[in-house]
């Protein structure tokens, strides 16, 4: 699934945990691991990094790229040159208003990266598999691919519970329109709206190998990104998997795309699957 995994590192307090998480993933996917740091290459930092890698017994197995320049641009440049499949980075759960509009490095990476991106909000020094995974099942062009890749991830990582969440669009308005009819029309419409969404996900699942996974289909009503984030947060999910929405710019932050809603307040670790 992923042959080359890159980890973007800054020497923050969480950097050892991030390396541990990336190492775990490279083992799960049997992938090559590279590290990218953008900034001055100082002896003290080289030593700290080597110590951390040594402790995890991966010092000889990883390639390290020390780069100069704008962090987000450089990270993406290395990823492209090295043919990275998955970029891992740490991210803050919540961002202030200013950061949201101007954009942090993590957000920039998510918006512009060409490979899949995993944002970890709470990396652990002794990482564990992602047990509870939520996959976006909303009716979008990329959804069959997102579900397929999401299930692959879950199988490899041996997730215990997998939820595919789809939602009914403009439920309030549709129900109000149905409300012109009698009680039976309202009930029928409600049932139809739910069953259509369940069927959409089940059709996709039909053609996929689920292995031993326990897959649950959940239907919510409202805006997909918001509902997805709410659901992931309610069940205390470990990972949320979504597809990307193409290149997003400043205007998308002013008049947000759905994905931007998730980015402004990450409910849990987030994997964005790109083509």
């Amino acid at each position: 699934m992923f042959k080359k995994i890159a980890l973007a590192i800054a020497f923050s307090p969480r950097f050892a945990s991030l390396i541990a998480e990336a190492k775990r993933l490279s083992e799960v996917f049997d992938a090559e691991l590279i590290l990218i740091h953008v900034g001055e290459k100082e002896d003290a930092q080289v030593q700290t990094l080597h110590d951390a890698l040594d402790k995890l017994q991966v010092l000889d197995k990883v390639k390290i790229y020390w780069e100069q320049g704008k962090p987000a641009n450089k990270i993406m440049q290395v990823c492209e040159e090295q043919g990275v499949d998955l970029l891992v980075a740490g991210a803050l759960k919540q961002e202030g208003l200013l950061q949201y509009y101007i954009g942090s490095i993590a957000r920039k990476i998510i918006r512009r990266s060409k490979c899949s991106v995993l944002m970890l909000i709470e990396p652990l020094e002794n990482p564990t598999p992602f047990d509870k995974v939520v996959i976006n099942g909303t009716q979008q062009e990329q959804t069959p691919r997102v579900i397929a890749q999401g299930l692959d991830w879950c199988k490899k990582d041996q997730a215990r519970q997998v939820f595919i969440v789809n939602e009914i669009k403009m439920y309030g308005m549709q129900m109000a329109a149905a409300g012109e009819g009698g009680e039976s029309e309202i009930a029928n419409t409600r049932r139809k709206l739910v069953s259509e969404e369940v069927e959409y996900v089940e059709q996709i699942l039909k053609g996929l190998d689920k292995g031993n996974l326990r897959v649950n289909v959940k239907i919510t009503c409202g805006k997909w990104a918001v509902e997805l984030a709410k659901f992931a947060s309610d069940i205390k999910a470990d990972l949320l998997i979504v597809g990307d929405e193409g290149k997003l710019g400043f205007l998308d932050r002013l008049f947000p795309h759905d994905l931007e809603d998730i980015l402004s307040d990450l409910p849990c670790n987030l994997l964005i699957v790109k083509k």
Partner: protein
Amino acid sequence: MEHLSHQDVVNLFLMLAAMLLLARIFAEIAQKFKQPAVVGELLAGILLGPTILGTFFPELFQDLFLSNPNANLALDGFVQIAVVLLLFIAGLEVELHLVWSQGKSALSISLLGLIVPFILGFVFPYYFPEFFGLVEGDRLLFSLFMGTAMSITALPVVVRILMDLDLFKTKMGMLIVASAMVNDIIGWLIFSVILSFMGKAGNLSLMQTIGITLLFTFFMLTIGKFIINKALPWINKKLAWPGGVLSLSMAFCFMAAAFTEWLGIHAIFGAFLLGVALGDSEHMSERAKEIVHQFINNIFAPLFFVSIGLKINFFTNFDLLLTLAILVISFAGKIVGSGFGAYKGGFNVKESLAVGFGMNARGAMEIILGLIALENGLIGEKLFVALVIMAIVTSMSSGPLMKWSLKAAKEEREAAS
């Protein structure tokens, strides 16, 4: 402070009861014939008003609706609230997210679906003002209004049709819905500017009015929306549900309405924009929206639509030629405009025609627009009656016409393959 007398109160409640009762009965009958409730509610008004009751039972009509000016004034207050609330839910239905995600094709359908009918609606009344009923007044304003009236699309009717045809979630369905939303926003924006020139409270110049309207729109869609989005989680969490969100959203709706009325750009615009900002908030739950819809659609909407019939004699003010002209302009404008927009967006001719038919539904929005123009002396009663008939005809014909052209498109595709 003046009070309603004992007789005023009795009269007011009798009026309200008669209106709601008859509206319900006729709405149910309309639905039996697969027609929107609003058609029945308008018929109830025509029956209760000068057209039928006033003609055949003038004394009863006089006693019930004309004998008591104080009760009428109170009823007028109810109807005002109804219009503001109807615009509030019209705003609530607009999902900026959806508009944004549909991107360019939605924009081209909605802009062409707005510009072409607007031009058609503007040109004819401008060059033939007498035919369209302009006796005195500003020809430019009158023509601008007609342009707007021709370009608006009624979202709830469109949603209903799309659901009935099982098209709501298709690419075409979402495009039509998003386009109707854009039409709504721009249409009401233009109308607000026109209204502010009807000069009741407004002492502002054209540029000032446009500037303030745009500024208010921008404010509501950015900072206003942000504030609402921050306040709603607190309201949902700390206050009773759904009581808290319902009463506070109504309160803010009235506040916004009062503010825009004070600015001189009509109360409805404030209510509409507050609806847009609130509806787009991620914390305004779909359940809460459904409750607001039901509450307004079943209590205030019937009062408003029945009151239309009470104001006007639909028989004496019916002008066949004028009605036909309005119908032709409205059909031509939407079908050519939105249809061409859809064609440009990659649909074939028959499918584009279906989009045009879908966007042609005018419904309640047209009637609200017409009534406000009538009350402000911008249009005459004959034109208003023609507009109401156009709203009904377009709403009733949209579904069948769309079905027909989609069937033709399907047959064409099957023949080709």
